[in-house]
């Protein structure tokens, strides 16, 4: 079997789910004949027709709102944000309408809002964002953020079958940079379960999405240069967090570094730290530390972007400090 990219994994998931269930349909800007800004929906309209792969006006509020309405009727909409940066326009609709409809009046919103997020691509402040923290705060939503090609596929399929709204943050840096042989058959990765990406005994990194790969690189360096065994947890789902996996790794290694690409203040690492503090205080041999982006809008020029975003050596330095504590 040949390897497929992260992007192709998502595309396969969309194809397979649309084949499986006539209620699944896609809507978004330029997703039809053009196949989307990143070609994630390439070929979908040709296969399933323009009524199931709908090119919309530039209206994120309407895209998300219409997806919710269709979802009420039993459809399974998959809405694309051309860049996840634009999901901010639908912030009200997602947090106030979609997230609460079931709780308030019993109307479910089985829908997926997906799109490319993340930096390391010189995209500047509006084509590089990691807006997960803004939604992480909203009960009623689920958030998924895969780091590998097979997780991208398996989680997308799970997201489409989920009975609630799943925000699916794809990482554009990973789209064509990573490849994997896809598991055969109807490959589903359950929402809500983290994955141990590397076993280790001395210190744990908790991370997700693109920084997983930097964490793994850092773990290699630590093994090779310092003889330190680093465990790496790939969260995969951010909401709900996999508390069990977090607690297990902390109690195993007693030292934790949380890494995310998002800015520091108010990023998800804060919540994870609080949960660790609440559940594992006595198991901690060192403070929980964070490697994150600096608290600035993401600048565009390479030296600036590189300085703001977390890099492998930042992780190495942070690990050394935790280990030396």
């Amino acid at each position, binding site marked *: 079997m040949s390897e497929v990219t992260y992007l192709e994994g998502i595309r396969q998931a969309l194809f397979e789910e649309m084949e499986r269930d006539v209620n699944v349909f896609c809507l978004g800007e330029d997703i039809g004949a053009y196949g989307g800004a990143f070609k994630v929906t390439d070929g979908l309209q040709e296969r399933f027709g323009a*009524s199931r792969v709908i090119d919309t006006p530039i209206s994120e509020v309407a895209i998300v709102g219409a*997806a919710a309405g269709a*979802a009420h*009727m039993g459809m399974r*909409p998959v809405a694309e944000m051309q860049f996840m940066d634009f999901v901010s326009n639908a912030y009200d609709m997602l947090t106030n309408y979609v997230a609460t409809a079931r709780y308030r009046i019993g109307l479910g919103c089985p829908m997926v809002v997906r799109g490319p997020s993340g930096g390391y691509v010189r995209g500047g402040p509006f084509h590089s964002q990691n807006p997960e923290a803004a939604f992480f705060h909203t009960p009623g939503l689920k958030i998924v953020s895969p780091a590998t090609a097979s997780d991208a596929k398996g989680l997308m399929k799970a997201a489409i079958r989920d*009975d609630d709204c799943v925000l699916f943050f794809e990482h554009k840096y990973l789209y064509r940079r990573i490849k994997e042989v896809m598991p055969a058959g109807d490959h589903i990765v359950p929402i809500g379960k983290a994955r141990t990406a590397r076993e280790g005994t001395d210190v744990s990194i908790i991370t997700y999405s693109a920084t997983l790969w930097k964490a793994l690189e850092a773990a290699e360096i630590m093994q090779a240069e310092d003889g330190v065994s680093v465990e790496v947890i790939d969260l995969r789902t951010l909401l709900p967090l996999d*508390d069990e996996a977090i607690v297990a790794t902390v109690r195993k290694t007693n030292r934790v570094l949380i890494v995310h690409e998002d800015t520091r203040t108010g990023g998800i690492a804060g919540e994870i730290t609080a949960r660790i503090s*609440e559940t594992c205080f006595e198991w901690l041999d060192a403070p929980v530390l964070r490697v994150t982006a600096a608290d600035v809008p993401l600048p565009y020029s390479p030296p600036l972007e590189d300085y703001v975003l977390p890099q492998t050596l930042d992780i190495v330095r942070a690990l050394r400090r935790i280990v030396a504590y």
Partner: protein
Amino acid sequence: MALTREQKLELYYYMRLTRSLEERLVNLYRQTKVIGGLFRSLGQEADAVGAAYALDKSKGDLLSPLIRNLGAMLVRGAEPTEVIKQYMAKGDSPTKGKELNIHFGGVERGFIGQISHLGDMVPVMAGVTLASKMRGEDRVGLVFVGDGATSTGAFHEGINFAAVQRCPLVVVVENNGYAYSTPVSKQTAAKSFSDKAIGYGIPGEQADGNDVLAVYDVTKRAVDRARRGEGVTLIELITYRRKGHAEHDNQSYVPPGEIERWAAENDPIDRFEKVLRGEKVKAAELRAIDERIKAEIDIATDIADASPMPDPLEALRGVYAGQPSVAPLWFREDVSSAVEKHERASGWGTYDV
């Protein structure tokens, strides 16, 4: 097809029921039995009732009402008991105490509850009707917005989206002269709200919102168009909000005499009563309906009043489909006693990790 005598009496029934039910709610509000604000549609009953009446229950038509469209919900089958329970925040109200006033509904009920954020229901109803269209059903949707709500981005994005997709949707702008204290002249510089249709490439019609038959007619035409696959219509219904935004609002911003004039000359129920009398309906027949309504509301009030408040733990239920309840937090009395049973709680984030 002209409405039958029976149907016209039904229109009368629903308008009168709306008014009487709201009056009862005012009494309950004064007795502090209503929790939160109370929103009236006094003088606007015709537009809600007439528009909703143009939908077809047998086809599964769906509407999304606003705070002043109690009448539309009653037409679609909402019960006075449910409405009073909602306003009293009772545990066996449609939303089990989670949502307020007339924010309730469901697909099978023929109406979908609104949220407070104005305009948001327009995209949602675009999606509801898009689904019908995709499935080849002949269901039609109707969404109410106020004159004020037309200024929201959601209204614009939703109606434009629906127009391009030719969704079977009727958008009713209920122009009652005010948005809270803001007169229409500060809401838009447009001459009329029906003019906004042109910018979306859809038909726009205007009607006298206090003439229930005119409302029915204009809406029925739009519903028929939608059902024939001709897409969206924007309807402006001219009416007037005789009460304040909510019960607490003293309407100091309204020019003197304006309310009195509408009340005296343009009450939709008075007007319709005249029409009916002209069509040989006896006053006694109408008074009998009024009496029936009073009895219904009395019973509803008693039932609602006797209903229990919700169980606190209901607050944790129903956030996600796959999770019946969120875990209670460890510091709650009922929970902490359980926590104390352990030597030391392993999880102090949520109860018992």
